[in-house]
């Protein structure tokens, strides 16, 4: 009995094992938690929209890139221009900004490590959703064409930034097969521009003129038309540019029929977090104060961290919250306001809504602040961190509500005026456009010369991230940015990131060999 019992035990033990072994196939096949297999995804309209949202996401990237540093679209561009310095805690604080500020960019270090990957991330996500929309069951044709148009706009937007910053980029318009990744070569800039134009032209008819409040932040027809105009302007296709801008701008100083665009009566109201998506906003990046972000959310901030970055260090009063002292405003910009190009010897009225003179504020209040690196005493007001906007949850300095209006009506007025002047168009309309911008802040008219338009752009759009692009496309950068070390023939472009030159067929931009 004993022996038999042992044998039974042995057999049953081995039997249990073999049962286990025989069902091991299913034991080893697990489903991921909180994720989907790609073959089963994109099967509902909601999933199609989630795919589109993924393509929107890189528009608002404050931290990221190859090097996980601060890459807000405004910060490095402001640091590179004559509007601001990099600033911050010291000459090594956020080196990407410092290196652009000093024009000490190398292939391995600089803001290219942020901008290049972020924009290509956007391109790839737009490509993905564009390749999926047609096969989504239950997606109405209206929604399908709107989603397609939004993705086309986003792809054009990302490629436009890539083209302006890097010029020589691979043109990828469909999801890349793994085998093709290393075979990409840089496209001709004209081909990239033509792709951008085609995307925008295809998108425009399928986008809504206006969106309901809950959809604020979604791409509109106006945004696409304005972007197309801007693309033409950069391509120096002035007549085409003016045509597009005219659709948006309507009668200078009036309200554009259909779109409802009109200049805000009050200049500071344009930037107020209490007045988001106002009548002047054409394309606005939407920030939220409500997500209670903490440092743990480094890769996903959607609150305005840039506001915190530009605040004065070690400061805080009833109005202004402190910050980290980045992007101090240059004496040059300050002087452009205090001795305006149009003469008169009085400060431009926009000064007080653009520049905060901290030294005089601190003296007035008998408080102190800590001068940041390259401190000038002048701080940015358009996105300033205000005490009343400090969030109540999360790390409050990471949750400011300030939006970034990337294209606004005053900008398209001035771009149309410029296109008209450069392209020999309607000079009186050009004058009406620039003077509508000036009249809003109570300034007398000026003549619509190219010089005046350039100077007006600087004052109206100071610190909004356009200045560096403007200087480069006008060819003014070498002279104007000489004080920062700008090298003509090289610094018009950013270097291609070193990480993307390894094992690929890409070639470095001129002057950045090392």
């Amino acid at each position, binding site marked *: 009995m004993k022996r038999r019992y042992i044998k039974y035990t042995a057999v049953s033990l081995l039997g249990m094992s073999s049962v286990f072994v025989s069902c091991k196939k299913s034991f080893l096949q697990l489903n991921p938690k909180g994720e989907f297999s790609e073959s089963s995804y994109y099967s509902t309209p909601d999933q199609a929209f989630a795919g589109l949202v993924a393509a929107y996401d890189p528009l608002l990237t404050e931290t990221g890139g190859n090097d996980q540093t601060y890459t807000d679209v405004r910060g490095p561009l402001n640091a590179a221009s004559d509007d601001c310095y990099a600033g911050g805690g010291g000459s090594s604080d956020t080196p990407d900004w410092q290196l652009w500020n000093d024009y000490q960019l190398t292939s391995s270090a600089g803001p290219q490590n942020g901008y290049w990957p972020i924009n290509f991330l956007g391109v790839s996500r737009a490509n993905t959703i564009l390749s999926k929309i047609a096969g989504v069951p239950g997606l109405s044709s209206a929604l399908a064409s709107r989603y397609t148009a939004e993705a086309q706009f986003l792809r054009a937007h990302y490629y436009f930034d890539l083209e302006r910053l890097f010029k020589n980029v691979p043109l990828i318009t469909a999801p890349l097969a793994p085998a093709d990744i290393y075979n990409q070569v840089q496209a001709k800039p004209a081909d990239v521009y033509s792709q951008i134009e085609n995307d925008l032209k295809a998108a425009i008819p399928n986008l809504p003129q206006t969106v309901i*409040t809950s959809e604020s932040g979604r791409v509109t027809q106006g945004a696409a038309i304005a972007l197309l105009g801007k693309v033409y302007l950069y391509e120096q296709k002035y007549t085409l540019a003016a045509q597009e801008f005219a659709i948006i701008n309507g009668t200078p100083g009036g309200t554009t029929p259909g779109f409802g665009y009109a200049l805000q009566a009050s200049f500071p109201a344009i930037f107020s977090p209490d007045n988001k998506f106002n009548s002047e906003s054409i394309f606005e990046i939407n920030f939220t104060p409500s997500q209670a972000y903490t440092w743990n959310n480094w890769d996903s901030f959607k609150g305005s961290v840039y506001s915190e970055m530009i605040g004065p260090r070690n400061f805080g009063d009833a109005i202004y919250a402190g910050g980290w002292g980045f992007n101090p405003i240059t004496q040059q910009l300050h002087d452009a306001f205090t001795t305006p190009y149009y003469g008169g010897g009085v400060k431009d009225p926009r000064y007080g809504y653009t520049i905060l003179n901290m030294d005089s504020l601190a003296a007035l209040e008998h408080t102190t602040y800590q001068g940041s690196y390259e401190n000038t005493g002048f701080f940015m007001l358009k996105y300033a961190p205000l005490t009343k906007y400090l969030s109540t*949850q999360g790390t409050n300095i990471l949750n400011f509500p300030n939006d970034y209006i990337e294209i606004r009506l005053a900008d398209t007025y001035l771009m149309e005026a410029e296109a008209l002047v450069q392209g020999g168009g309607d000079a009186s309309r050009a004058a009406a456009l620039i003077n509508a911008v000036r009249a809003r802040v109570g300034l007398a008219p000026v003549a619509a010369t190219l010089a005046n338009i350039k100077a007006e752009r600087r004052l109206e759009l100071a610190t909004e991230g356009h200045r560096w692009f403007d200087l480069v496309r006008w060819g003014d950068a070498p002279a104007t940015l000489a004080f920062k070390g700008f090298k003509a023939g090289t610094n018009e472009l950013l270097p291609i990131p070193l990480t993307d030159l390894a094992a690929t067929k890409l070639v470095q931009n001129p002057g950045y060999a090392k």
Partner: protein
Amino acid sequence: MRKTITILFIFLLSGISVALAQNITVKGTVVDKTGTALPGVTVTLKATTIGTQTDANGHFSINVPVNGTLRFTFVGYNAQEVAVNNQMVINVTLQENTTDLNEVVVIGYGTQKKATAAGAIATVGANDLKDQQVLRVDDALEGRAAGVTVTSTSGAPGAAPNVIIRGQNSLGNSSPLYVVDGQIWDDGGYDSINPNDIESLSVLKDASAAIYGSRASNGVVLITTKKGAIGTPKITYNFYYGNQSVTKKVGLADATQYAELRNESVTNDGGTAPFANPSQYGTGTNWQDVIFGNAPIMSNNLAISGGSDKSNYFTSVGYLHQEGVVTPDYSDYKRMNFRVNTSSKPKSWLTYGENFNYAYIRSTTNFNTNSVFGGPLSDALNLDPLTPVVVTNISAQPNASTYTNPNYAPYLFRNAQGQPYGISAYVANEIVNPIADEQKQIGNYNWAHNLQGDAYLQIEPIKGLTIKTDIAAKQSFYGSESFTPLFYENANNSNLPPATNSQYRIMQQNLEWNWDNTATYDRTIGKHHFTVLVGQSSEEESGYDVGDTNYGEPITTEQQASFNFALPQTDRFGFGGDQQPETLSSLFARAHYDYDEKYIIEGIVRRDGSSKFGSDNVYGTFPSILAGWVVTKEDWFPKNTFVDYLKIRGSYGVLGNELALSPFQYTPIVGSIGSYVYGQEGGQTLVTGYGPNSLPNPALKWERDKATDIALDATLFHDLTATIDFYNKASDQLLLSVPPPAYAGVSGSAYENAGGITNKGVEVQLGYIKKFGDFNVHLNGNIAYNKNTVTNLNVLPYIAAGAWQGSNTPQIQRSQVGQAYDSFFGYKEIGIFQTQAQVNAYKDKNGNLFQPNAKPGDYIFQSVTDVGPIGPSDRQFLGSPLPPWTYGFNFAASYKQFDISVFGQGVWGNKLLQEYRRLDLSTANYPISALNAWTPTNTNTNVARLSDNDPNGNYKNLSSALLQSGAYMRIKTIQVGYTLPKNLMTKLDMSRVHVYVSGDNLFTITKYNGFDPEVWGGSNQTGGVDQGVYPTARTIRVGVDVTL
């Protein structure tokens, strides 16, 4: 039925026959060759489980048949057998076993006699550890086993070290696999094992690890806990109390020096000196004196064990309480352990048992060690010495308005007198007053409940065949608690209205189980001995976490915090997550054959199936072969030479590694990627985007490691044992996370089996035991050399690693073919420019200056490209953070009642980068070496000039000038003990009382000028980068070990 009766009858008869055979009580004494009584010697009746143990005086008494044979066994001594032959008194002298060849080593799913082992297996026994302060099981390996590199990641109580066996051999994860009493454990938390419960540690370093197949290539650490022995119950109590202090403070500028250095740096850049009359500031605050303190440590351990021939038990309770030397008031680690190990043998063919461990750990670990982003160490290193710890006169402060500002004043941290703690007027960002910050940490702690163990059933249906089923599991519950009040520490660190206080709680759980079924057949026929093992194993790991953050509780202090407060739902932030599950299903076998313990051959094969791999490659097979030849057993081998024993052995195997891979990399997965905000205030919604989150690779396979080992085991001059291993581990098909070019636009990296790393090395382990009269000497030493070379990175020219806040080229380490893993990569410094003429003369053949931004006093960097100006392509390899040489040594001696032991270890050949000073904060405090910076009047120096802008990158470029040797030799423990005399023990009815004084980490010989040359981990998770590591404490302990 009849058969049963027959069997029963035969049983009865045999019982009677045993009873009929005459039994006598045999008494005697067991001594060693010096005549010293040996307590605890196991005395058994041969071929039975009847047995006893000698008492404190070496006496034993046992009732046995007159014709039986007694077997005397004792660790460290040769077993001896004596036929009873009607003798009433048997006195035995045991001979010390200097070769330890009868020792049994644990080899995974079984044990093996060391004499017949052919693998490279290092063992560390309880005896090796008893004189050392071992707080964690993985720390126990440091300096003990040749080829095992253990590097402390932090001296904070409870911190886990980094363990690498025979070199970094994966680009992902090089951690060994831990197996505790058969329970497979690969996800950390090893501190829940009480080191006092450890019987032995076996480290499988070569192809012998192949029995663990797909997880063997990083080596396997087998931990066996203590079991009860046959005999009277044994009670041991160990206690020690110690005081810990910091071994070293680093040289930093004092207040006057700081002001002078700031002036020097700013004026070097053409600015105006910020500090008039620096000497007015005196010495200022020494922030290191502020954060470091003395910290007590106490350990209590009680174990009771015993057993009979039918069952045995071991049970223990332990309590460890350790404070840390960094801000001791809020540095606290408590561990409570409870263990029960039992086994029973109710039938001669049936054994069952269990090993169970429960541990509760409560710790404060918020020291942010080895990080430049704040925490007490980073604060002390970077905060200016001008700022006072406590402000007694606010109006005298340069930033007086900070203290008086009505928005801040109510929220400043203050001392008991209501005076605010100092807030720096110069250094901000993450750097705050560490004593103020201590108050913010009050009430924050981590906790863990760990339940871990196994239960098994084993039958022996026929002689030699053992069938065993063993279910093992580890269930961990762990989490943390914290409270954030309203506070103001500096402009970057505050929580002010309209923000609110918040309470945070997270609870996590993790379950890892494995069920192993094995059959082992062990048989000796004449001189032929063979063992065959076949087995099957299944394993699963899963887990989840949930947590909550409450904002705006109607309270002000941590003591009042509670989740019970009714709050609006908008102020309650719940969260949770699931761990991606993993499963493994495996078959394995091992066949061992030896002839007369002379010729040994062994084969191992394991086939693993894993949920981490695609349908093409679910299974991987890992074979290995081992062989040994005991030369001295040959008849022709000359006798009576100095060579007493010589074994040549070798092994070759294919070992796998899957720890490096995250789940579901083989299949296209759509997950959440990013988000975007739509809508306006009041109606804003954050919508989550979904998309493919990485490039799948359906062809993914296991990492493979071809491991070869050739070795000699020898005993020379009777007393000297030596083991020399030569090995070559060539890993190919390493799981390489290949970041695609950024233009591909995927955020995640694709895995490929494309990497290769080779580790070649030599390990020498020596042991010497000798007795000179009353004087016993025991010497042990090991030294290992490992050469690590990256051999393949597929398309990648290199993999960059490391991050250096504020540097020009933040990634300072590189893995590149032909170089060691993660070697430092930067400029080679070849001197300091003394004159502008020298700068102007340093140019390439086209006349381009190599360093156009340089000024006298700046470092000269070597050009690699011979093209000016010097840029990133002029960087070169500057050394490895992983030490090629590691060694350890142990000396133990006893004379009569006195004993002494010395244990030390060290490394040699590695480089360290000290990143204490925040580069992005030009006002951060300076290391004392800055006083020797180049100035026109101090030109004979190797420290470059100071400059905030640093246009030449003296401090912002990684260069050889900034690297230091990481070599060190550390005396880990010196212990002096005294064992109370025997006659006293007899009176007290105790077996042994040993009292001792011990010093741990007494001194370290190193040229490295930081806190501690043992550097690993931190916010970069890299080796060799010191951002202010929590230093290992020096401990002076007094203790007592009592055995009843």
